[in-house]
């Protein structure tokens, strides 16, 4: 196992000892990234719960746009396989979804199930696009454009201007799908988009579908919900899970000087944030470099070095990925477990010291 402390190569035990010491000293530790398999995500939450850390994810910008809208207005959604199998009209919101692999599957096939089976699939776009049969440049921004469509769908606007045509086409669809990337559309836009799907489903069927996302955020959300009853971002410093997307934003906590240690978890590679070097930090990463953090421990990549449960984008579900190239790299879950054990032993020792 490769490990470094302050840039110097060292053994696993020394590195875990150093990581434990770094976290034990911290008053407001943060565990961030969480781009990992379910076993490691669980282990990270267990550690956070036991040391009172807060938790944030690698893709929380988009994830929170989604979660914020969800908790305020709800959602009307479908899945990738249902979109491919049933959608006769697809509205692509913005530029990002055109890059998603789902788009290819949608373009390559016609609907095969349900009442739209056998019909052609039409593509509409918000944002300039050459592939779509109707594309509205939406120069005022996506949230506003979605709002205009919604106004047409609810008969608050009328006429055959381009957005009116798009709204009419969606209303005439048998199974419409609104594709978007949460990080691109943002919280206000997502709320508006859910409202559009709900308005259209008064008379036909229309559903939203999010694509994109960073790291394993889509695995973290359910695991966090079942372990703590709450979505990320959350903190455990007061021994109750507190869900607060502003307070527990890791970047903000570091910038404000609130966080005094960070554990960065990226067993599934994601870009490392630049604020990591601003605080004493531990990195558990699959693509390890000596300078990544004060303490760096190289871990296996789930689905490659060892088996693991990961978000399967195509299936929109958690699925098990066996090791494709098994190695003896330790899993992030194992390292986190060792770290928790070390910290728990330290806590027990400090409790048994006489009060002075």
């Amino acid at each position, binding site marked *: 196992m490769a490990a470094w402390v302050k840039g110097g190569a060292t053994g696993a035990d020394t590195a875990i000892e150093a990581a434990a010491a770094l976290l034990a000293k911290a008053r407001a530790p943060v565990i961030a990234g969480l781009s990992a398999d379910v076993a490691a995500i669980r282990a990270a939450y267990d550690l956070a719960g036991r040391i009172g850390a807060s938790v944030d994810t690698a893709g929380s910008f988009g994830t929170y746009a989604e979660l914020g809208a969800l*908790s305020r207005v709800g959602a009307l959604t479908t899945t990738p*396989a*249902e979109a491919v199998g049933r959608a006769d009209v697809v509205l692509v919101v913005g530029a990002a979804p055109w890059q998603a692999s789902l788009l290819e599957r949608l373009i390559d096939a016609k609907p095969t199930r349900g009442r739209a*089976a056998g019909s052609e699939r039409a593509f509409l776009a918000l944002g300039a696009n050459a592939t779509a049969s109707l594309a509205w440049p939406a120069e005022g921004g996506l949230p506003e454009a979605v709002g205009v469509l919604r106004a047409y769908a609810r008969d608050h606007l009328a006429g055959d201007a381009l957005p009116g045509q798009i709204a009419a086409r969606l209303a005439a669809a048998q199974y419409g799908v609104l594709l978007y990337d949460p990080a691109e559309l943002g919280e206000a836009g997502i709320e508006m988009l859910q409202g559009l799907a709900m308005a259209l489903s008064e008379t036909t069927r229309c559903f939203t579908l999010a694509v994109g996302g960073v790291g394993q955020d889509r695995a973290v959300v359910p695991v966090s919900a*079942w372990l703590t009853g709450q979505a990320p971002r959350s903190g455990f410093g007061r021994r109750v899970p507190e869900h607060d997307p502003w307070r527990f934003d890791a970047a903000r906590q570091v910038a404000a000087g609130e966080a005094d240690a960070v554990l960065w978890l990226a067993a599934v590679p994601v870009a490392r944030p630049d604020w990591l070097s601003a605080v004493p930090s531990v990195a558990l990463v699959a693509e390890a470099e000596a300078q990544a953090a004060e303490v760096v421990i190289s871990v296996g990549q789930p689905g490659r070095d060892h088996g693991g449960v990961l978000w399967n984008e195509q299936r929109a579900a958690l699925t*098990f990925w066996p090791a494709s190239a098994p190695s003896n790299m330790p899993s992030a879950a194992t390292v986190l477990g060792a770290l928790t054990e070390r910290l728990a032993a330290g806590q027990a020792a400090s409790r048994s010291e006489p009060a002075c």
Partner: protein
Amino acid sequence: MLSVIRGGRVVDPTASRNSVGDVWIEDGHVVDPQSRAPDAVIDAAGCVVMAGGVEVHSHIAGGNVITSRLLLPDLYVSEAAPEGHPFAHAGGAAAWIGSTYARMGYTTAVEPAMPPTHALGTQLELADIPLLDRGALTVMGNDDQLLQLLRERQGGNAVRDLVALSVAQSRGLGVKCINAGGASAFKDGALRLSLDDEIPCYGLSTRQIMGSLLDAVEEIGVPHPLHVHCNNLGLPGADDSFMATLDAAEGRRIHFAHAQFYAYGAVDPANPGTGGFRSAAERIAQAITDNPNATLDIGQVVFGQTVTVSLDILRQFAGRKGAKPKKWVLNAGDAEGGGVVPFLYRPRGPTSSLQWAIGLEIMLLSTDPERTILTTDHPNGGPFTQYPRIIHLLMDKSERDREIATLPGVVGERSSLPGLEREYTLSEIAQLTRSGPAKLLGLADRGHLRAGARADVAVYRDDTDRTAMFTAAKLVLKDGVPIVEDGEVVEWRAGRTLSLAVESDRAMATRADAYLTERFGAGLDSFAVPDAAFGEGTETFEAVPCRV
């Protein structure tokens, strides 16, 4: 180690025990009384000793449950973590579910709605519920793969093989169908579906789909009968759907989920949508008496804020306008998907009061409490944490009268509850919450205290305040190990997930793999629930044999 629970009132209706006596335990099981000196004596004087409670229908894991937490982050209250577990007092979390059930003396709980497409996520979540043994029912009845088989009339063997494969792949304990065909119909624009309505694009009816699943379950030998969520839940006249479904079962074993929500007779049968409903509890209770192969669980309503979660997306879509607070989530997913609609059972509201009365009525009119099992369909009728209060109301007529006195007159006008004198005995409570559900699930080693039973035992201080008595057990043993003492968890151990040992047909596996690859771009492997997903050295699952 040999131990004895001494001097408690032992209540085990399966052995006609209801008197002060001892329960002997060795190696995790109940044993016959021994002449040897025990290694440990547990004093149960002044206490009631029962088998651990068994839950047959409580939504404790899966996509809808997760969505409900995201939609309503403030539904539950969290308290500071206890020693030994960071999240056991985190309201609504898996550990909170496990510890809250355990404190009430429950030791087994079944999640009734596991979609095969999301089996692994559901099973991982269940495995994180500590203290209890768990299980999940595999949901079928809306998926295109099954509906295609039926449309093409491929015969009972093909259906049986697909059901067996789905249960084996998802590692379910039984099979459930939820408004069979309803989710599919919803996606094709339908707003309502009854037993013989045609499901668009398939030319099938609920009767045909459910009938094929009833047969498959029998042929495979699933111990738990098909667990059925009928059409038209919650609508005036739903009692007709219930009766029609019972008739359609044609004497085959069938379990009706949350029957209270169907015990709504239309006040004006000519205009069921407008005239409101009256209790059909007598009709439902009589039907269960008359059909020994039928069972039901209640789905008792509890006053207050809750959230409804269901794979019946047709029903959840129809219910969206009653959402309180006004937000809801509906996922038109692979097969069923799911719907999450927050709901307030308004304290002292006329509708909620009548619903509350009907659930109690069905139990009080029951001639066989083992076949009319207590549930709240958590969280749909209300949280499972209200079981102690419901037991109190069943056991104490004066307590019921006090509550009824605060409710609107509709309770007396449209239900027979105020006139029911019956008070449940402790033996009947044990039937309702122990022996009945264990028999229903086909778990012969639970729900009783005869020799050979698993040593899952709840010891309660006998107290006329039954709410207090059943909220916090004095002692709970799981497999002979004390997990709760004086209402607090003392040992954070993991239970097992019960899953049916069922062989799947190789030819069907090959066919399913091809079908799934075409539809999902990923084959049968991506639907698997392998041991390796639960961590090395952990034994998460325990096999339950099929009936012979």
